[in-house]
């Protein structure tokens, strides 16, 4: 029963990720750049559920997010690796509950996601050299790190209550 309950919560909150990405609330953005909502959701889930579940959730979320933007650039591999890594951290060490740790992990995750996008555009040659890729990457990492202690910690608490 608990597993079923957890699944329901998982799907309900995960569906908020594409909705928030599309709605892009202006008050949660720096210079118009919003946070990486997928990172904010994936972080607590992977920390709590382990590497396999984290990697699977990352892949699923990545496929969903790829359907929301133009172009052939994919976020799935980066999210898959992030889910795996965070799952290993959650399994191996002390339970992570300090907000600073969450924020740091979210910043690294968002930067890795942005770097994967930047790398793919560079390799595909669609990105002109004068574009503002680095600025977007840094801005998104900043706002994601600021929001992680607020949102990811709440989700983490929720997952711990349920399990």
């Amino acid at each position, binding site marked *: 029963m608990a597993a079923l309950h957890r699944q329901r919560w998982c799907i309900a909150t995960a569906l908020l990720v594409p909705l928030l990405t599309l709605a*892009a609330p202006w008050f949660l953005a720096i210079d118009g750049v*919003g946070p990486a909502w997928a990172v904010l959701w994936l972080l607590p889930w992977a920390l709590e559920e382990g590497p396999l579940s984290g990697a699977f959730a990352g892949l699923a979320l990545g496929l969903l997010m790829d359907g929301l*933007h133009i172009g052939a*650039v994919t976020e799935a591999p980066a999210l898959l690796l992030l889910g795996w890594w965070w799952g290993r951290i959650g399994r191996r060490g002390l339970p992570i509950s300090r907000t600073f740790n969450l924020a740091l992990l979210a910043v690294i995750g968002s930067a890795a996601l942005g770097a994967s996008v930047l790398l793919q*555009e560079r390799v595909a040659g669609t990105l002109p050299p004068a*574009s503002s890729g680095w600025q977007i990457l840094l801005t998104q990492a900043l706002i994601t790190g600021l929001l992680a202690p607020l949102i990811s910690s709440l989700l983490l608490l929720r997952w711990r209550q349920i399990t």
Partner: protein
Amino acid sequence: MAGRLLRVPLMQKILGAWPWWLLLLALFGVRLSKGAGVMDAYALLSRPFWPGPAQSQWLQSAQRLDEHTRLQLLEQDNARLRGLVELDKTRGTAISAPVISRLTSGWWQQLELGKGSLQGVRDGAAVIAPGGLIGLVSSVTPTTARVALLTNSSSRLGVWIPRVKRHGLLVGLDTPRPRLEFLDKDTGVRPGDVVTTSPASTLVPPNLTVGVVQSVDEDLVPAPDASVQLSAPIDAVDWVQVVAR
């Protein structure tokens, strides 16, 4: 001698009427200056009855109406002529669509529209906002359509600069201002030049405003490029027109 002349009765009368002489001199001055003083006094007195802002609004609205009508007539005329030379085989109807999601900064510069293939929106259709062209439809679902904005880094659009009659390539940079690349040197393009779609274009509607050249980098090899500010305010657009091909 002077005293004796003053004692002549006629001279005394003439000199005694000096205020009238002064008045005559003043009127002579008015005559010479074509009404200085009198006109100023009239203007001062009649100022409360001058035509006010209401009247200037009437005139402005009349002028707007005149320009609007002329524009409509010219557009009709233009469409007829284009039909004659068979440039206009691709002419389609415009579909109004609401913007339901707006991602204008971040990794992907795109809009989501609330109308899709069921309403006749097709892949590659031009999207026009108040102010000019903003992008092309990149994918459609039955009820929504995704627009790749001209600022998106995957966007490439051939444009036309009417003043110097030259083509250029508008390349998105993921920043608010796309870059205009030229094919040859000595373009003669200056900041302030208007950028439009090509008059002979069949991919997008011809002669649509795209933006204004902000700055030109002349030192670049092999050809200079320019930074373009789009004329449509993408951050504020709520409804757009999709011109189906």
